[in-house]
C-alpha cells in the first residue's frame, strides 16, 4: 500500500483530466476530482453520465485513455484491479460482486487467498480472519460456512464491505451500496459508512438516491454526458440545486 507521508491537506486521490472512450463515445471526458481522507464524495448523474465508468477507471476495470491519477500526492498507474488494490483502493459493486456458490471467507479472500506452505488453500486461517472482521462489522453475522447465496442482501453487502476492511482499504468505491437492500439493512450499511469515514477512509459513493447522498456525503460531484458539471459542498446547496445540476447540467445559483 502507498502510505507515504504526504503533507497535511494532500488529497487521498486526485484525478486530473481523466478521459475514457469506448469506440467513438467519450464515456468520461476530461474529469478532475479530489477525495480527502475521511471524506465521502458522492458522484451523481443520470444514466450514462459516466460516473460508473469513472469509478471503474479508478478500480482498474477500465483503464483511462489519458489523464493522471494521484494517490497521496504521487502519480500511479492503474491498469487492472490488482494495481488498484495495491494502492489501497477497494470497490463494492452495485450488483454485489460476490460468487454466490462460495462461502463468506472464500469471497472475502477471492483472488488473494491465504495459502499454506505447500501452496494449498489455508481455509482455516481464512475462516478465522473472516470471523474476526465480521465480528467488528456485523456481530449478528454467523453463516460463515454457507454459500453466500443463502444470505440476506444486508449480510451479503457486509461480506463485500468486510473485504475492503480486512485488506485495509484507504479508498473505498461504493457503487449503489444500498440499491438492493431493505430499510433496516440500508440503515446498517449507512452506519458502516459513517464508521469507515471516522477511521479516515475516503469514500466515493455512487448513488441514485438523493436522500442517501444528502445524508452521507460531504461533497457532491455531478456528471452529465461524461463531463463534470460541478462539485459542491453538501451544506451549501439544496436538493433542488443538485437535481437541477443532474437534469439540466446547470450550476446552482445561475438564473433559470
Amino acid at each position, binding site marked *: 500500500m502507498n502510505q507515504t507521508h504526504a503533507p497535511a491537506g494532500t488529497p487521498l486521490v486526485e484525478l486530473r483530466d481523466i478521459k475514457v472512450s469506448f469506440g467513438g463515445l467519450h464515456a468520461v471526458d476530461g474529469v478532475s476530482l479530489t477525495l480527502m481522507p475521511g471524506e465521502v464524495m458522492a458522484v451523481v448523474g443520470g444514466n450514462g453520465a459516466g460516473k460508473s465508468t469513472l469509478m471503474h477507471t479508478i478500480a482498474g476495470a477500465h483503464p483511462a485513455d489519458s489523464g493522471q491519477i494521484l494517490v497521496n500526492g504521487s502519480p500511479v498507474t492503474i491498469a487492472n*484491479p490488482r494495481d488498484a488494490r495495491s494502492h489501497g483502493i477497494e470497490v463494492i459493486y452495485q450488483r454485489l*460482486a460476490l460468487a454466490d*456458490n462460495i462461502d463468506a471467507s472464500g469471497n472475502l479472500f477471492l483472488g488473494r487467498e491465504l495459502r499454506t506452505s505447500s501452496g494449498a488453500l489455508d481455509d482455516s486461517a481464512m475462516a478465522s480472519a473472516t470471523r474476526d472482521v465480521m465480528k467488528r462489522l456485523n456481530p449478528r453475522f454467523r453463516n460463515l460456512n454457507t454459500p453466500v447465496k443463502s444470505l440476506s442482501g444486508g449480510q451479503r453487502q457486509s461480506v463485500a464491505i468486510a473485504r475492503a476492511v480486512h485488506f485495509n482499504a484507504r479508498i473505498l468505491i461504493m457503487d449503489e451500496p444500498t440499491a438492493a437492500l431493505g430499510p433496516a439493512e440500508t440503515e446498517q450499511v449507512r452506519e458502516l459508512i459513517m464508521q469507515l469515514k471516522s477511521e479516515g477512509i475516503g469514500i466515493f459513493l455512487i448513488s441514485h438516491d438523493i436522500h442517501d447522498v444528502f445524508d452521507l456525503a460531504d461533497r457532491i460531484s455531478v456528471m452529465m454526458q461524461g463531463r463534470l458539471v460541478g462539485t459542491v459542498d453538501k451544506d451549501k446547496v439544496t436538493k433542488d440545486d443538485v437535481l437541477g445540476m443532474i437534469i439540466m447540467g446547470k450550476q446552482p445559483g445561475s438564473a433559470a
Partner: protein
Amino acid sequence: MTDTHSAPPATADGSQRRDWRAFLASSEIDTRLAGMVAALAVIWLAFHFLSGGDFLTSRNLWNLSVQSASIAVMATGMVLIIVSRNIDLSVGSLLGFLGYVMAMVQTRWIPDTFGLGFNRWYTWIIALAVGITLGALIGAVQGAVVAYGGVPAFIVTLGGFLVWRGLIFRMGEQGQTLSPLDDNFRLVGGGPDGSLGEVRSWVFAVIGCAGVSLSLYLSRRRRKRYDLSLRPLPVDVGLAVAGCAVILAAVGLVANGYESPITKQPTGVAYPVVILILVTMAMVYVSRRRRFGRYVYAIGGNPEAAELGGINTRRTLMMTFVVMGILCAVSAAIQTARLNAAVTNLGIQNELDVISAAVIGGTSFAGGIGTITGAVLGAVLMQSLRSGMVLLRIDSPSQDIVVGIVLVTAVAIDAALRLGKKRTVGVSLVTGLVLAALIIQTGRQ
C-alpha cells in the same frame, strides 16, 4: 457452529426440525451426495432382487468397478468444465485419437521408426508419456480458442469432435486395428494380471483407512488451532469408522472376494480402479484445496466477480481443458489396454456418457455447482443401470431409453430440490420410476 444451537426454538415441532438441521449442518455431510448414495443403494438392491441374486456378487461388482473407471475418470474433468459454464463434446473423439496414437507409438513408431523393438521395459512409459503430453497440448489448444479466442466451447469442441476422430484415419494406417499391444501397457486395462492381487490390495486398503483417518484428524486440528467451530467428535469418529468400513468391505468382499477364473486366486483391486481412485483424490484436492479449483468455482458462480477479484479467468478456463485432455489420455490408455487393441470407433458416444455422469452427479449447467465425487458416483450409477439391465437381458436400445429417462429425472429432481418444490420432486421421481419400470418390463427378451 455454536451459535446455531443457541437459537431459541419457536415451537416443539420446529425445534426438533431445527436440531436435525443443525446436526446436518454441523456434521457438514453433503446431503446431495448422501441422496446419490441412497439412490445407488436402491438401484443395486432392486437389480439384485429382479435378477434373482445375481447383482450383488463379487464378480458383478468387480466388473462394474472396472467398467465404470474409464468414464468416471473423464467425468471428474468434465465437472470442472461444466462448473465454469463450458462444455466439452470432443472427449470421445479425443479418447479415440489418443488411444490410437498410443498404440501407434508401441506397435509402429518405437519398433519400426526408431528401431527400438517391441515389448521392452520402456515401451509403456513412452506410450503413456506421449499420450498424456499430446492430450494436454490438444486440451490447451481447444481451451485457448475458447478462453482467448472467445469462441463458444460448444463450437470449438464440436469441431474437435470431428477433427480428432477424422485424424485417426490420417496416421498412415488407414484406420486399421492395431493389435496386440505392449504387455506392460495392457496391465493398465485390468486384464487377468492387471490387478493388485490379494496382499497388495489389503495394503492399499490399510493405507486408504489411515489416509481417511489422518485427513479427518488434521482438518480437526487445523480448525482447533484457529478456534473455529468443530464438528462434534462422535461425528468425526463415525465418519472415520464408516470410511474405513467401506474401504475394507470393498476390498475384502469385492476385490479379494472375486477369484480370477484363470488362476483361482483372489484378483484384488484392478488397476483401472486404482487409477480412478488416485485420479479422484487428486481432482478432489485440486478442486477444493488449490487456488485453481477455487477460481473455477468462482468463475462458474459469478464470472464478473472473479474478473474483478483479479483472477486470471482466461488462463483458468484454458487450464480446465488441459486437465480434461490429460484425463482423456488416461481413459484412452485404460480402454485400449483393456481391448489389447486400438480401433477407430474407440470412445464413440463417450462424450455423452461423461456429460451424463457429471450431470447425474449433481453438476449444474447454470455453473458454479458440482462435485468430483458426485460425478464418480454418477458414472457408477449409470454403469450400474447398464450392468443390471444386461443381467435382466434387456436389449441395448431399451437400455438407452432407461438411461435417458434416469438422466432427465435426476436433473428434474435436483432442480426441484434446489427451488424447494417438494411436490415436483415427488412427481418427477414417480414419473421417472414408472417410465423406467415400463421400459424394463417390456424390454426383457
